[in-house]
């Protein structure tokens, strides 16, 4: 993990209040990053924003020295980030956390389930899985049609199901409605999204081994402040989401 000052390559609004930010980072560092890891971005100089913003890695392009993250505007800090310009420098801690342990898992077909801003890390995961010859089926959920992103990108990697809460696109309802009504073949699942969604996915897929990525308000991002924690499954211990996670075996934590 390192602190780096890197230039912005491009920033683009790809869906409603959802931005794709491409950063230029040296190849040797990018090559070490695992799907599911995150970066911790300093919003700007000065004292207005004392906390960094943790954002998952959405894609890496080694040939272009490019790291992509996708974030949604939730408040003033993320709004400031949308005004970044090409060439502007930003301060990162990179890479943070543990990713999805795909190197150590034997599987043929993976099911990826994502919701909202939990979708981006699944894209780099899907690409990495396909590169290893593993089949990928993706189920992604959004609140409404305007918020959908990366459907086409996922479609190049395998079958994709899209849901919207209001039914304005794809299946009306939640990602779990797809899990319920479609006959999906897979041997592992990987999920990222808001806690209620993860809870529902974990419950619905409890016969299958799987990994989930948790989000929580973070402080330092490196394990020193104990802000982002989750109870272990037996309730006897706290795990740090930033350093023990953000990816956990679904049976490891209490959600």
């Amino acid at each position, binding site marked *: 993990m390192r602190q780096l000052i890197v230039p912005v390559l491009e920033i683009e609004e790809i869906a409603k209040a959802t931005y794709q930010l491409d950063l230029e980072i040296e190849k040797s560092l990018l090559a070490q990053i695992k799907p599911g890891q995150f970066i911790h971005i300093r919003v700007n100089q000065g004292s207005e924003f004392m906390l960094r913003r943790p954002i998952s890695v959405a894609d890496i392009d080694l040939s272009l020295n490019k790291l992509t993250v996708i974030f949604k505007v939730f408040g003033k800090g993320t709004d400031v980030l949308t005004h970044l310009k090409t060439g502007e420098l930003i301060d990162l801690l990179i890479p943070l956390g543990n990713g999805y342990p795909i190197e150590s898992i034997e599987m043929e077909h993976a099911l990826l389930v994502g919701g909202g801003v939990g979708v981006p890390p699944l894209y780099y995961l899907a690409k990495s899985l396909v590169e290893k010859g593993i089949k990928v089926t993706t189920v992604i959920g959004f609140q409404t049609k305007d918020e959908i992103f990366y459907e086409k990108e996922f479609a190049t990697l395998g079958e994709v199901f899209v849901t919207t809460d209001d039914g304005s696109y794809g299946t009306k309802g939640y990602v779990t409605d797809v899990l319920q009504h479609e006959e999906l073949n897979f041997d592992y699942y990987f999920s990222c999204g808001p806690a209620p969604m993860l809870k529902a996915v974990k419950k619905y897929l409890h016969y299958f081994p799987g990994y989930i990525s948790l989000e929580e308000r973070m402080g330092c991002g490196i394990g020193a*402040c104990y802000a982002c*924690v989750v109870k272990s499954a037996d309730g006897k211990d706290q795990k740090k989401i930033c350093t023990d996670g953000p990816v956990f075996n679904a049976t490891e934590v209490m959600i």
Partner: protein
Amino acid sequence: MNLSVKLPGLNLKNPIMPASGCFSFGKEYSQFYDLSKLGAVVIKAATLNERLGNPTPRVAETYSGMLNAIGLQNPGVERIIDQELPYLKNYDVPIVANIAGSSVEEYEQVARAFQRTDGIAAVELNISCPNVKEGGLQFGTNPDVAAEVTRRVKAASNVPVYVKLTPNVTNVVEIAQAVEQAGADGLTMINSLTGMQIDLQNRRPLLANKVGGLTGPAIKPVAIRMVYQVYQAVKIPIIGVGGIMTAEDVLEFLLAGASAVQVGTANFQNPMICPELIEQLPACLAKYGFKSVEEAIGKGHHSE
């Protein structure tokens, strides 16, 4: 330039140390720099038994600051001594053990437990904790209770004791004098200010604990004021803490009467803040006409 400061139990090469709770037990920040550069390391608060802390969310950002309600999560004093302190012994830096408790007896037991290690240069007594036996009233808000816990911890310690004062009181001078009389070797001030943020979407306090401690630059003027007032009323040294971001902030605390400072929230924004401040301090002191750190201490006070 001479940045060193000599305080009870603490021979500081410079006046910069991370504040308790913002630095865990040091290992994380040692990925960024050599901890031997620091004046001292103040470890996360130790309680007698392991504490799992509060539910999440535990932090919220505010204007130039943040709220936290971690809830003293720590593995308990014995595991801290056995599993956390050995790593810090690799560095040439004094270690200050911050101790907390929910009864006077617990504070005493934690202080006594630290006697079995020679790795501690001083104890910092966190009296901002609620006293469970006295209906949750903070130890640090009543001069008699603050004095009592200071006396008992002093008797149970074999190293100097610094008492970390809470700002959530009407008269901080009265508390400072009470703990000085009870034998405190120094003061750390200030701890966080009690605050709250309400989430508009959910229409409820954002932190699971509802209230949290406000820290960061937002509280610096309060800290400066309290250090200034207490400096005039006590003889023991003060370690200043509250919102330090720059070398100028460090100097401001020195002028107010602090002999050294702690840096907390700024570590989260910039993990290199402590070594950067150490590097920038000489030029800042020189700019304002000082030849050493010691020369600047208390120089904001004038008899009128």
